[in-house]
């Protein structure tokens, strides 16, 4: 197992490198550069030239690439043009926020999806099943950013139950500790819902069909014949097997979460990596875009790796050969 993980990790290095190089090429190919925002009539062009020299932008593109790769390899993520501070600090500030949001969204996806899917399977063709199917298709096809905006308009604007943006309230530091947790939860719930609902719907569909398939298997008939309660049959036996594809799905959802977080974070002013990469792209802040893309591609690769490992752990029919290196 360890060997397998090691092999996969080594395989992912060229992938991450390739993705970062591609993004480097794309960023430099697009019109404009970090000094674009300074191109105004009241600023002397000589100032802009000096800025370009200071930032190393006057060098040929391949030289810039080599410089960037070599500093990256040494762990130096560089300096942000727009935020004027080391990028490693920026990532330290923003990555935990994105992980928090994605993590909670993942929990929502898993619990909501599995429960609804199971419910649908045991009550097949009932009213609940049909309603849940319609609901699943609705949430699945709806764009997440639209759903986010609708949540804000309904829950924040009309009903005023929940805050519309950011991670904490403006008087957060003056709230007692218990209330601080409530405050964080209130800020977390809408963006996590907006991020997770679409995927929860598809998990529900998978779960439903998975459960239906399992429930028709012989071992379930045996379990019932042995006199086990319906609850044990469903939750302890059938669900375990139905969960196998779901578990691997979770690993594959990591890239979707990371991508969806970009829109949701912008709408909800959530200070995470998604919003960081968007504003860096618009400001042509090359080092930040490259560093964020690097981090995000690592997350995607890790997500896929996690999916593969979990799959072999959860399904006893598939076991990675220990001798494989």
């Amino acid at each position, binding site marked *: 197992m360890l060997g397998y993980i090691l092999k996969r990790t080594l395989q992912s290095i060229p992938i991450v490198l390739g993705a970062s190089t591609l993004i480097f090429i794309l960023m430099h190919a697009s019109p404009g550069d970090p000094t*674009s925002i300074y191109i105004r009539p009241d600023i002397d062009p000589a100032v802009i030239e000096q800025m370009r020299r200071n930032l190393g932008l006057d060098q040929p593109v391949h030289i810039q690439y080599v410089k960037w790769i070599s500093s990256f390899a040494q762990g130096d993520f560089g300096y942000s043009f727009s935020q004027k501070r080391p990028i490693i600090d920026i990532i330290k*500030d923003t990555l935990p926020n994105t992980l928090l949001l994605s993590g909670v969204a993942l929990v929502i996806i898993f619990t909501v999806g599995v429960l609804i899917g199971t419910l649908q399977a045991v009550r097949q063709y009932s009213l609940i099943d049909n309603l849940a199917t319609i609901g699943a298709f609705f949430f699945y096809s709806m764009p997440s950013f639209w759903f986010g905006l609708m949540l804000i308009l309904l829950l924040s604007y009309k009903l*005023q139950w929940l805050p519309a943006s950011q991670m904490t309230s403006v008087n957060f530091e003056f709230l007692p500790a218990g*209330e601080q947790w409530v405050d964080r939860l209130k800020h977390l719930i809408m963006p996590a819902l907006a991020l997770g609902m679409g995927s929860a719907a598809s998990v529900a569909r998978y779960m439903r069909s998975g459960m239906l398939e399992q429930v028709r298997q012989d071992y379930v008939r045996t379990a019932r014949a042995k006199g086990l309660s319906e609850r044990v049959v469903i939750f302890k036996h059938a669900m375990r097997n139905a969960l196998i594809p779901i578990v691997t799905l979770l690993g594959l959802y990591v890239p979707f979460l990371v991508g969806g977080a970009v829109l949701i974070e912008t709408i*909800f*002013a959530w*200070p995470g990596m998604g919003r960081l990469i968007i504003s860096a792209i618009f400001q042509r802040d090359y080092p930040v875009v490259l560093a964020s893309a690097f981090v995000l591609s690592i997350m995607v690769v890790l997500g896929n790796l996690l999916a593969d490992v979990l799959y072999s752990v959860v399904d006893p029919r598939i076991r990675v050969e220990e001798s494989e290196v």
Partner: protein
Amino acid sequence: MRAIRRLAIVTAALLAACGGGGGEAGEQAGAEGTPVDGDMLVVGLPVDADTFFPPLSNSVTSSDIYSNIYWYLMRSEPDFITFRPGLADSFTFSEDSLQVTFHIHPGITWHDGAPFTAEDVVFANDVCKSPEINWSSASWLDHISNVEAVDSLTVRFTYDEPYMYQVLDANVCYPLPKHLLGDVPYTEMGNHPIARSPVGNGPFRFVSWRSGEEIVIEANPDFVRGRPHVNRIAFRIISEGTTLATQIQNGDVDLWPRFTPPSFYPQFNTDADLVVHSYPGRSYTYVAWNRLDPLFEDKRVRQALTMASNRAEIVEALVYGQGHIGSQPLISTIWAHDPTIEPYPFDADSARALLEAAGWADTDGDGIREKDGRRLAFRIKTNTNNQLRVDIATVLQQQFRAVGADASPEPLEFNTFIEQLIGKEYQAAVGGWSVGIKPDMIPIFGQGELFNFVSANDPQLERHIREAEVTRDMAGMKEILSQAQRIVVEEAYYTFLFQLNDLHAIDSRFQNVDMNAYGWGFNLEEWYVPEGRQKYDVPLSASPMARTGADSATPPAGR
């Protein structure tokens, strides 16, 4: 809407057994006329600050904030020609007008307790002029040949010649704390802790900055001219307009300066809890015509299309009346504005007649004019991230069609748009200019200048704008600029659409708010909330040193 929110707060407060703000108690307590201390102002801004070291900053958000932490010696009035006291009480000119001496108010200290002296002004001038810092506005200091500290409270500027902007140019580079930065090499100043947690000398002092989320400043109780009334100001970074609009209407945010797009104006204006401030701003929207394009090389075509544009309709429909029809590049908020220059009338008949006279006629009956085998069909470019301009291009399309021209809007990504404008790869474009404090027509109309993308080439115009640059007296400069403007208007290089108002929305509980052409924060230190209407109960920090320092990027205790 606010009533429901107050009810919710009160209920939550009862349930949580915690005291909330004082806003629920009723609104009439306290004499409304007497300023009272307390409460917090929550400002919503779409973009984060970049740095709080003024010579390296180019973000409007940054300057909105640090202009309260750092002060100039003299602060401008809204006309930018006269001044009110800042760190200094007054200034005097020498006999030959080559020197200006500023008299610093005694007792001013930096936020860490060190005294503010004339040495800090001298030091700042060196920093602002240094090539390593490469301050983008360093050219404003070109006429200043020397700055010296006569004594700790007196600083003297010496200029190479007398000219109009001597006092203004001495007050564009913020005095900096020499006792903290004096030994720091210029190349390292941007990384110094005070770039992220500034130590200033103004009415507000810095508290914290959570990147991408929130910047907090609070009243400086030791400020020698009297502390501001509002205890604390929290600037929240919210990039999505819809979200920000929701929050200002449900009370989470108190002030949205420069709100955009103007389509929010009607709903904010009718909201009983908000006050909208609207006054002529410093920017105008235009249509630029590429004179080098065969369609637009004849000025009659440019004039005709200007007359075909119904600017009053655009202002009414798209800007909700919050703008003035444009007539010239030096707009009404500039002292050199010439009120005798009339805008082109909206006259579709004259436009058609002029196009006919220029040889453009609709010979094939398709509604679009032709000349020499070429159709009067063109693309109007603009930038996608400005919905107002995209809408204007669409409205103009319809207005131009009525006189036989076929315009198709082409929105582009911002950087692409700028590149194509400068590269003159366009036919017509809807854009906007922000006018600086000093009226200068050279960057936009000077031959060979980067931003003269309309290719203005009239020789008299060129002579006038170069002459204006070296004219010393106001009356003379104004006369020359008027003549230059008349040529620009006659040639119709630009169709001046309208001058946009600055639009700000603020919670009605704030009193004494004076917003004007200087900016929304003109008298921020004088704003207050009457006792009965205060919403947030936030104390001042115990010790100024506890809050400043390199650690402010981490969240405050309790998270």
